[in-house]
């Protein structure tokens, strides 16, 4: 286990390093820079040059990269070049909106998709099972932003029961309004996430249904459903857990789109705005922090799955 763990952690570190290089290079391929943004439409070339020097943008790219990595090694994710605030603090502030959204949509997806997957597995090749199956395909195929817009049209425009966009200006000081603002975004994210989860969980349940211990349970007089829940669920939870770990990354991508569609002041909107003003030190710090988070979750899930599943213990 120790060998496995150290190997897994080494892989994680390499993954972080590779993504940091990619991130650094890609961001610098963008046209325009922060000195121009600060200068605006009244700037002279001399002023832009002076601003670049003041912001340290005139240093060579490798030295900027090394400075950045040196900071990361000390746990310093940099500051915004515009307002000087530590990147991690700002990320934390925006998580007040994005965090509950991520958590609520994951929980909703899990709570809805897993029981439905069990039902679909139980009713495999029956009409209701097939209907669920087709619906989940649809959930995967339709783009997230399209679902968001459709939900806005139905629940905000037609029925008028939920706000179409925005987040209360006072934030969580008005908890009810804040929670209501998150309902449609949560549903949108949960739908696409849940559809994927459903596919994997259904396959996992179907597999356990064919196992000898389920057959044995049936022989002891349990119904198909009881056998599935009592003996199948724990086994099916392993692949579901794995896929949840993988989904964290795509979920973060979805959040950027969803916050845009619903104009929520969260991490996604912050990133879009920072890219727009070319606050690159902050963007690279934010994205790297999120990347590290995703890699850590993935690693943790792998380790947990390995601990839970005795069959994997001997494998390197």
């Amino acid at each position, binding site marked *: 286990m120790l060998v496995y763990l150290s190997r897994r952690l080494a892989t994680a570190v390499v993954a972080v390093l590779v993504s940091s290089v990619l991130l650094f290079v890609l961001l610098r391929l963008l046209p325009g820079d922060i000195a121009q943004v600060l200068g605006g439409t009244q700037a002279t070339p001399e002023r832009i040059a002076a601003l670049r020097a003041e912001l340290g943008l005139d240093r060579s790219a490798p030295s900027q990269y090394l400075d950045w990595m040196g900071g990361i090694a000390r746990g310093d994710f940099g500051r915004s070049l515009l307002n000087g605030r530590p990147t991690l603090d700002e990320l934390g502030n925006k998580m007040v909106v994005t965090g509950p959204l991520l958590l609520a949509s994951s929980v909703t997806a899990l709570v809805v998709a897993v029981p439905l997957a069990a039902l679909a597995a139980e009713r495999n090749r029956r009409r209701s099972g097939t209907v669920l199956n087709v619906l989940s395909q649809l959930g995967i195929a339709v783009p997230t932003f399209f679902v968001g817009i459709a939900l806005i049209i139905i629940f905000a425009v037609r029925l008028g029961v939920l706000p179409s966009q925005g987040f209360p200006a006072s934030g*969580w000081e008005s908890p009810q309004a804040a929670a209501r603002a998150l309902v449609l975004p949560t549903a949108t994210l949960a739908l696409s996430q849940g559809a994927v989860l459903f596919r994997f969980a259904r396959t996992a349940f179907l597999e356990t249904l064919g196992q000898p211990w389920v057959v044995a349970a049936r022989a002891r007089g349990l119904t198909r459903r009881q056998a599935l829940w009592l003996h199948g669920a724990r086994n099916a939870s392993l692949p579901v857990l794995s896929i949840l770990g993988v989904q964290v990354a795509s979920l973060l991508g979805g959040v950027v789109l969803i916050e845009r569609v619903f104009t929520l002041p969260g991490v996604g909107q912050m990133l879009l705005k920072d890219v727009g003003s070319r606050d690159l030190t902050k963007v690279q710090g934010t994205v790297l922090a999120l990347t590290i988070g995703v890699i850590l979750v993935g690693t943790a899930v792998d380790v947990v799955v390995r601990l839970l599943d005795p069959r994997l213990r001997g494998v390197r």
Partner: protein
Amino acid sequence: MTFGTSRVPGPSGARALCTSVALVAALALASCGGSDDSNTVSIGAVLEPTSLDLVTTSGAALDQVLLDNVYETLLDTDSEGNVVAGLAEIPTVSEDGTTYTFGVRDGVSFHDGDPLTADDIVWSLNAFRGETSAVAAELASIVSVEANGSEVVIELAQRDNSLLFSLTRRGGAVLDDDTTDMKDSANGTGPFTLASWNVGSSIDLDRNGSYWGPAPAVDGATFYYFTDANAAVNALTTGEIDVLTGAAGDLVLPLEDDPAYTVTNGGSTGEMTLGFNNSDEALGDVRVRTAIRRAIDKSAFLELSNGFGTLIGGPVPPSDPWYEDLTDIATYDPAAARQLLADAGYADGLTLKLVFPNIYSTTVAEFIVSQLAEVGVTVEVETVEFSVWLDRVFTAADYDLTFVIHIEPRDIVNYAQPGYYWRYDSREVQDLIATAKLATDPAEANDLLRRAARKISEDSASDWLALFADIVVARDGVTGYPVNDASSRFDASRIVLAAD
């Protein structure tokens, strides 16, 4: 048939659900019981500043929230536009117009308690004329600033008629001379102190209890920033904000007839400019530029925003002393436009690239495309981020047509810079504007600028679709808010909220 419910959902799901419920509840509770904000005015705005550094950060967003509220300027303007004393007295100017001497207002102190001295003013003026300053160009004629006892003496290289006006704006803002970093803080002398900045959503100001002038009637002011025009109007109608600045003309129409709201079509200095690249092969020809102007129906353009806005016909807004109605130059006439294009050798049509910043409504781009199509000009639109626009259009002039609302006041001077992104190079205009700056008589200066504006319009250096309407909407019971240029400067100190 029933489920074995005790086992649904799986154990991990249940735990996660509890965690999330607990988290949401904790968040809600932690932020409950905030202060009673009944006498704080909530102001909606469109553009949030990117940084609070008044020296380096250009743009009206910063002036809107900080000038007059947190920072004050050396000089001020009264309601008729005359320059009056601010933190400094009206300067005495030497015969040759190159030495300005003025005293400093007594009994003023900064928010941190430091008293205002002549040294602070010297320090501030030097900061604002430094090379990284956003307003260095406005103060370029200054060669030295010195304190002489309690007075400040400014020496100029030559006479500068626009200096007093510049000192009523950001260039005249007064900072404490021990300021080191003001990206995320502010230490001014104004009626409000900066309380907090929630980046991405709002800036809170508190009443300055030891303000030297009349105390504001409100306890504080909060600027809320909306990236979406609909969300901004919604916030007004749901009572989240009291006043909305920069409201979208097409959205406020229903509020105009509603007695619960007051809609003001405020004046502005924002020329909605269709920029021509004068160094282009086709657009270098004045006939082609004039043809484009004559092909665009400006009255129809105004209807896009429900008539909010003003037709100008040149680079000068009516609020400037050298304004003159130029709307009779290059009037709408598609037939004449076609003829001009044919004369210039484009009878078979012309294709131009419109690089359009995505901060503006794309209906503007669509309108230009459809109008120019009628005279045989094909416009290919490329929508870009503003930062890309700054790089490609503003810096490199890699474009044919572009669109920007030039909100800076008295920005006719840009037409005297051949390197400005329009690449408009007219010796005559450059001379007129340079001479105006040196003129001894203000009337003479105004006349020279008037002639420059006419020449710029006759040359069709750009097209001016309209003057942008800075629309302010306030709910019933709010008085004392500014209505002119409210997106560029918003003094909240005279606002009164009627008791509910």
